[in-house]
Structures are given as C-alpha cells and as structure tokens.
C-alpha cells in the first residue's frame, strides 16, 4: 500500500467512511472542524448522511436517533463541545446504543485555548454524564493508529452496543503524517443486522423501543447490573496497551497519545545519561490496562513510575490504582495547550529517581 500524507482530522473522517460509517452529525469547533468539513464534502459522495447540527447537544441526540434507527454513526467535537454532549452520551449508554464519538481535546477549563491538551481524561474514562456507565475509550498516539483503530471502534460499538470514544489531542487532529490504509473499506451493506433497531415494525413484529428510562428502581438496578456485567466483559476482552523498552527499565513513563511520543523522546535522553527508561502506553484508557501496568511495575528493576500528561494530572489516578502502592508514582505535565518538553519529562524521571 502506498503511503499518503493526511491531516489527522481528515484521516479520521475518511477512516470512518471506510469503516462503513454513513452518518455524521456535528458542530464546528477548533481544532476538529476539518472533520465535519471533510464529511460535508465526502459523505454525500458515498450516499451517506452529513448534517451540521444547531449545537453539540443536537448532534449527540441526532446520533442517538440515527443509531437507534440502525445506522453506523459518528460525531466529533472538542472539549467544551464534548462537555455539552454528556447528557446525551449517558442516554446512549442507558439505551445501549452504539456510535463513535471523537474528542479532539484542547486546553481548558471553560473556553480555555484551542491548543492541544488532555484535560478531558476524567470525563472520557469516568463519564462526565450522570449514572453508572462507561465508554470504550481509544487513545491513539499518531494518525496511523487512529486510522487503524477506527474500524475496530465501530465494530466494538456494535458488538457491545455502547458508544466508543476516540480521545485525541489537537495535535493529532491538526498534524499531517504519511499513513497507509491497511484494511479494505467496509461496505455498509455487509454489516451485521441490528434486530433491535427502530426501523418500522412492518406490522410483522412487536414494536422496538429505544429507551433509558426504568422508572421502577428494581428494574433500573437490574438494568445497571446488566450493564455492569457487559462492562466486565469489555474489561476482560478489550484492554490494549503498548510497551517500549519496559523490560528491565529503571523508570517507567506512563503516557497516552502525544505525550507517549514525548516520553519516548525523554527515554532517549535518559538512555544517553545511562538510565534505562521504558514507556507504558495504554491504547485503551477505558478499560484501563491495570494488570499489565501492575506487572510492569512489579519488576525489580523499576524504581519509579512517572505519569506524563498534557494536563495537571488525571490519568495519574489510574496509574496509582494500577500500581497499587508497589512503586512510587509521580507526575509531570503541562496544561492549557503547552506540551511538556522531552527534557522536562526526563528531568521528572531524574527527580523521581532521586538524582
């Protein structure tokens, strides 16, 4: 396959189309507006639906409706816009609707800045909406990985009947890299049936109902327990992570997305200073690869775990839970659109090692 130079946001949109997505609803916001822009031009060409909604809230609710009607559907936004979608995401989880939600994160809180950041980790992994629910959250670190994971994102969404989030930062959305289209495009006609979808009864079956209301608390509890059981299956089957040079490392950087690249650069700097550093990179930040991280931390060689984030420290909670006290966990990060430098990251490791 020939490599092609793609801008992250456009690659995301194209990857979705190639994954059989024929339905997109969204609202402009920097740094992800190229996604709806690309969709507006290309969705009609493949007979798909593109609609610019009046707001992010409308978009997520259109996704709810379209998903309930059986479509492979996506929306995208950036931080403040994703905040507005929280109620809708909670509804999708309650009604068990698949769909892919892309968050190309920018600096916060509030209007913040339009530069890349990772301040929405909690929102993505814990659910910023109400109630007990989870999303599968992919946190790829480069455009190729985004593209590779997109098809899987839609498939897992359908398989588990739950939304899947692509958690990216503005840098991945805005940059260009050469990519390969490794998988053949999926035709929407080849997708599995969704017998639960509201496509009209044809008076041949009982009505299908898409709903998150369980007014009777016993029923609502049963529903929650069923969701929990589903999430348990996801936790068992869908953890993804990558390690770089963690075997026998003295310090382990834990980072997802762009900071994982910086951590590797920092590891390179440390290498030169005679310190073996490795990088543990969760690819799914929910389900979080706790056991794998715990394993890595247990190594005798490991003296310190350093979490690297483009935030003031959010994933570090998960790192603490994973490490569970077996090694000291520290944190280095910059927020609000500033990207930590490899030197800063390396220095944080030195500090953690007491040097």
């Amino acid at each position: 396959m020939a490599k092609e130079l793609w801008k992250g946001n456009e690659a995301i949109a194209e990857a979705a189309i190639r994954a059989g997505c024929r339905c997109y609803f969204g609202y402009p916001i920097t740094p992800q507006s190229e996604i709806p822009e690309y969709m507006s031009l290309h969705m009609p060409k493949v007979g798909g639906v593109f609609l610019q909604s009046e707001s992010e809230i409308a978009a997520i609710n259109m996704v709810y409706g379209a998903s309930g009607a059986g479509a492979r559907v996506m929306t995208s936004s950036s931080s403040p816009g994703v905040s507005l979608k929280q109620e809708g995401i909670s509804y999708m989880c309650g009604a068990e609707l698949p769909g892919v939600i892309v968050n190309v994160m920018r600096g916060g809180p509030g209007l913040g800045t339009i530069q890349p950041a990772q301040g929405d980790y909690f929102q993505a992994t814990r659910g910023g909406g109400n109630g007990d629910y989870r999303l599968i959250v992919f946190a790829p670190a480069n455009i190729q990985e985004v593209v590779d994971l997109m098809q899987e994102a839609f498939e897992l969404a359908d398989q588990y009947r739950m939304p899947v989030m692509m958690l990216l930062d503005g840098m991945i959305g805005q940059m260009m890299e050469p990519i390969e289209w490794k998988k053949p495009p999926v035709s929407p006609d080849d997708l599995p049936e969704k017998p639960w979808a509201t496509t009209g009864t044809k008076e041949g079956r009982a009505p299908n109902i898409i709903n998150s209301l369980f007014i009777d608390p016993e029923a609502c509890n049963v529903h929650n327990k069923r969701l929990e059981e589903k999430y348990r299956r996801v936790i068992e089957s869908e953890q993804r992570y990558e390690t770089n040079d963690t075997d026998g490392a003295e310090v382990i950087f834990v980072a997802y997305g762009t900071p994982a690249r910086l951590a590797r650069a920092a590891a390179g700097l440390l290498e030169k200073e005679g310190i073996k550093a490795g990088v543990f990179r969760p690819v799914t930040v929910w389900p979080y690869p706790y056991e794998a991280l715990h394993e890595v931390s247990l190594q005798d060689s490991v003296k310190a775990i350093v979490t690297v984030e483009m935030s003031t420290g959010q994933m570090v909670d998960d790192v603490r839970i994973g490490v569970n006290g077996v090694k000291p966990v520290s944190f280095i990060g910059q927020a609000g659109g500033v990207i930590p430098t490899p030197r800063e990251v390396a220095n944080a490791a030195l500090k953690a090692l007491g040097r």
Partner: protein
Amino acid sequence: MAIVYRRSKGLTDVETHYCPGCTHGIIHRLVAETLEELGVLGKTIGVAPVGCSVFAYDYFNCDMQEAAHGRAPAVATGIKRVLPDKVVFTYQGDGDLAAIGTGEITHAAMRGENITTIFVNNAIYGMTGGQMAPTTLVGQRATTAPLGRDKSHAGSPIRIAEMLATLDGAAYIERVTVTSPANVMKAKRAIKKAFELQLEGRGFTMIEVLSTCPTNWGLTPVKALEWLNENMIPVFPLGVYKDITKKEA
C-alpha cells in the same frame, strides 16, 4: 349493529398512567387513529419526550424512541435522515418543546425536517408537579409561580405556532384543541393533514394541541375543559398558522 368507534390499532393494549380525564389520552388516540388510517403503523417511528408522555413508547403500537428532555426533534432528525422513507413523529409537551427544547424544535422547523410534531400545550409542567411552563398564562398559579405568573418577572406566554410559522421550512402549522367532540374531530383532521404532508415530503409539520392538566390545574376533568376554553384559547388562538399548500392554490 356495526362498530362505529373502537379503540385504535395504533394503540397498544396497555393502560396509560395518565391522570383521570387528562386529554393526553385523547391526543394519543388521534395520532394512533391517523397512523392506522394512513396504513403506516408498520413504517412509523415515534419519539417520546420527557414529560407526562414519557411513557408514550409503551402506548403507540409502532417503533418508538425515548428522547432526552427537549431533544425529540434532534432524535427524530437522526432517525429521518437515516430512514427518509419512514414516517417519523415527535410527541412533546410544552416544557419539553417550548423551554429546554426551543433550539431543537426551531432548527428542525428551519431545516424543513420532514417530520411531524405533536405539541401538547397544557400550560404547565405536568410530570414534575405543576411548575411554571413558558406557556403558563399570566396570572396562572404554578408551584414555581405560587402567586401566579408575573409578567414583569417571567414574561408572557410564548406562542410557538406563531413563532415557528415565521420559518420557511415549516410546511404546516395549526393550533387545535380537544375540549369537545367537535374540536376532537378538527384536531384529528389537522393531525392527519400533517402526516399526509410528511408522506408527500413537504417538510416540517406541527400541530399544537391545547390540552388539560386537571391534576396540576386543581380542577376536575370537566372543569379543566372549560378553563381551557375560557382562558387558554384567547391567549393561544386556534387556527392555521402556516400552510404551504395554500400558496399553491
């Protein structure tokens, strides 16, 4: 003896949770009869709101989706864009449509979204216990307007039919009520026309139905009908506010 009136097949065989005499039930029936008569029950997807009609998904005998508060038009848009050949309707209260859902209904109308909205205006938040709605009359009491809606504080009721009629995408907008058998028949005709226009792909249609809430108005069902006639109709005049088929005539 021939049957001249029976329960519509458009309704499931389920008792509703509505209060005695609440006209939500009548409006449900009119929608159900329309879908049955047009022969489209098997290709209809309805969208229930958050409000007293939240359980409408259990009552209409067709595929249904339950939408978040106010978002039914967005949900319906999602469905209709995916399934343009199906019949899609929303059923919404005045809190749902005229308060939190103002943006969604306005933009569905602007886009000329080819759906039908049944807008049940009872001038109150029924479900949550009688709080003030944007359609509550000036002077009318509500649990959050214990001394009656004060115009200088909360403004005057919003007139949705009139407001949406300013939008080009709106194909048909009529305000009706169900306070008498004659009004019920008129309401039925309006609802049917709206669905027919949807089937013709003409754009956004909305029927605003003035409805009672005996429970929160603190009136018997029969007195509630009278109160509606006397107090609501002067503020919300019945009639056709938009009809694109008229231009053509």
